[in-house]
């Protein structure tokens, strides 16, 4: 176990090193940060002076070594836009993103497991077919569109008038399909509850939860269909296996067979995929957060790219790299607990 963790720590360091080199290498293509920092009519001499002060005139190697020297001491540079240490900026934006990912994960888990299991047990029922069809649509709609549609329906509201308003059933149907729209369409709201440090939470107030609903649904919409299908496929396979048949033959109640014997084995691959996907979800927050103006890391990163805020971009990429390594490590640990035959260090059992 210890050896495993040490090995992973080395991985993390290696990942951060590679990412930092890559991020540094592309910075010339990101554009000129100076351009964003000065007015249009500022003369070239002033721009050069600023470039010199920020050390942008130095050769690549010099810049990188300077960065690396500071980075090993925990100083990832100063964000040009926020005018404070990049790591601090990220720390401030991290809780919002983590809460969003957490809420989306919760939605995915709560919906995908029952739906996946149900449609594996009763593959021919109408409800199963509906969910399978819907998941195809869900998987192919880009998150940006999902978000805009959600905002239109639940925040702005839609008025339907395709049915004849003069008839009572038409009026009723029109009213039924029209939505009022009162969900907040942007931001985290103003009723955040302070927890600790940079962490203000949306989860502790009604207004905060309301703000969280639409972004979490649209973020979940990317992964949810995938997990429903994955769980269904795995479950169907497990239900065909010998030990399930044996358990049935023994006369164990079907409920116990499904949820204790079969589901446990279904979850193994799901956990693996899930772990990787949570990392990916952090990346997807860029889109969701942009549409909903959710003040998390994703929005911050997109703004940083637009502003060519290089120190912040580099720090963000490195932090995300670490998040990937950490989630994978946790997944492997959980995997070990769920399936004791797996040896973490990779030695033969």
């Amino acid at each position, binding site marked *: 176990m210890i050896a495993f963790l040490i090995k992973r720590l080395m991985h993390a360091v290696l990942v951060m090193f590679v990412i930092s080199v890559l991020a540094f290498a592309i910075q010339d293509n990101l554009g000129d940060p100076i351009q964003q920092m000065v007015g249009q009519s500022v003369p070239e001499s002033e721009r050069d002076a600023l470039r010199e002060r920020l050390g942008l005139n130095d050769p690549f190697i010099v810049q990188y070594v300077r960065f690396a020297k500071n980075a090993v001491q925990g100083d990832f540079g100063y964000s*040009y836009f926020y005018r404070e240490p990049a790591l601090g900026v990220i720390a401030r934006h991290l809780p919002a993103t983590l809460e969003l990912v957490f809420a989306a994960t919760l939605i995915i888990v709560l919906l995908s497991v029952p739906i996946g299991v149900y449609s594996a047990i009763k593959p021919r029922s109408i409800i199963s077919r509906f969910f399978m069809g819907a998941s195809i649509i869900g998987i192919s709609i880009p998150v940006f569109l999902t978000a805009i549609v959600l905002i239109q329906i639940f925040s702005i509201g839609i008025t339907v008038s395709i049915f004849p308003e003069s008839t009572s059933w038409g009026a009723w149907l029109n009213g039924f399909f029209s939505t009022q729209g009162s969900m907040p369409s942007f931001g985290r709201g103003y009723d955040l509850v302070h927890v600790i440090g940079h962490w203000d939470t949306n989860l502790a107030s009604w207004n905060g939860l309301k703000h969280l609903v639409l972004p979490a649904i649209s973020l979940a919409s990317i992964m949810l269909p995938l997990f429903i299908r994955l769980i269904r496929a795995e479950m169907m396979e497990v239900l065909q296996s010998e030990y399930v048949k044996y358990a049935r033959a023994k006369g164990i109640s079907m409920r116990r067979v499904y949820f204790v014997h079969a589901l446990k084995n279904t979850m193994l691959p799901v956990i693996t995929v899930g772990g990787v996907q949570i990392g990916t979800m952090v990346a997807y927050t860029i889109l969701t957060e942009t549409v909903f103006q959710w003040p998390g890391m994703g929005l911050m990163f997109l703004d940083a790219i637009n502003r060519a805020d290089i120190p912040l971009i580099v720090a963000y990429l490195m932090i995300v790299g670490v998040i990937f390594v950490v989630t994978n490590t946790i997944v492997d640990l959980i995997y070990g607990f769920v399936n004791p035959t797996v040896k973490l260090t990779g030695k033969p059992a």
Partner: protein
Amino acid sequence: MTLKKTLLASIIGATVAGGAMLPLTASAETLRIGYSADPETLDIHEQLSGGMLRFSHLAFDPLVRWTKDFDFEPRLATEWEQTDDTHMRMTLREGVTFHSGNEFTAKDVVWTIERLKESPDYKAIFEPIASAEAIDDYTVEITTTEPYPLMLNLATYIFPMDSQFYTGETDNGNDKAEIVKAGNSFASRNISGTGPFRLTDRRQGVRVDFERFEDYWDTETEGNVSSIVLTPISENASRVAALLSGGVDFIDAVPPNDLERIRESGDVKLVEVPGTRIIGFQLNQEKVEAFQDVRVRQAVDLAINQEGIADRLMRGFATPAGQFSPEGYSGHNPDLVPRYNLERAQELMAEAGYEDGFTVDMIAPNNRYVNDAQIAQAVANMLSRINIKVNLRTMPLAQYWPEYDTRQSDIAMIGWHADTEDSANFFQYLSFCIDDETGAGQYNYGNYCNEEIDALVTEADSVTNLDRRNEMLREAEAMLYEDVGFVMLHWQNLAYAAANGVEIEPVVNALDFPYLGDLVISR
């Protein structure tokens, strides 16, 4: 399937909406703003940008400010007098206090002007001012190096800062007055102005909170906004959605695609203002020999249908231009209008010996001006009709300016707003012969050079008789029009939208600085 989905959606919607939503209750005087960006810093001299000037008008007051018709309105300066060619005496308002409680006097104005002259962004604009001197507590005398006709234009940029508040040393031993770009200076974190609103909280990129300053000097204003919550919403669609859903009361920069939607909505209203930012193209004479021929330049100008672009592509969200100066500017010449004439353009190409045309590169940004990439595409198509084949490259802002600075392409798009709100500024930056010493022609991509025009504009800038000066600038516009030193397209309009009852119409202007201190909300 779709129907089922909608049905499901409606059911969820109905339960969520009907079940527990409390209506958003905003007190009558809280203004929730959704701007495309929030102020970059609290130090108003750190960066010269539209966003910072907007912020300056909230937390500070200028000496004078522009009215909707480009007149000057007294603010902290109540009277001014040009005592001779190089001196202006300004009388200041009495009984004004800063947010810190300090009293506003002439020494604050002098201090502010001196700081402006140190600011990298403002230094060039304040070059003409030699010095400022406090005659008594409420009189300031400003001396210019040479006769300078635009002293009042500059005064709109002088937002007196609290000199006492910004003087001294911080705990780390830094000077409180220092201007540090993209750094952590005292002034970028702390603020004391005289403005209608006092900053109470700021989380950069998330929200900025203001409260009305209880001791604000302007007690005659009808403005009744008691607090402001400013949320930056950079995504166009999200900003519009935030307004339509009632999440904010006031947004700026309504995208052209949503204009119709907002006009038709009963709950919000749209206010369009003709802007002052000229959008156009520069033809690089260094790279393309043909552009040195005035007939080819004219042909390019004649081949572009400015009206069509403003009408169809911009959906009426632009005013077609034939000159730099928009209406209201001193040098605006009403005779100079777009002159689209394809036949004549083809003739001119033939006369110049370029009947078969040639191929050029064009660069344009794709996230800087309204519909910039589409405009460039349309212009490229129009030029193909006079056999100029255009290879267009568009790129995001952060990459565009470095590319622009290399001057390697044949045609480049640019938008320009005159910092001084004066016609001469356009010429000095966009069409003056390039001179690295003086910085003239800093954005003259095409290397266009017409010394006659330059001489005329330079002379105009030392004429303090404004009628005479305007005459000269109009003449300069006419010469540039004939010589096609810049291919004009249009002035981009400004569009704001607000919830019903938020009376933004009287407080917005072509300068894009809404005077929110005077905003009336009646619900």
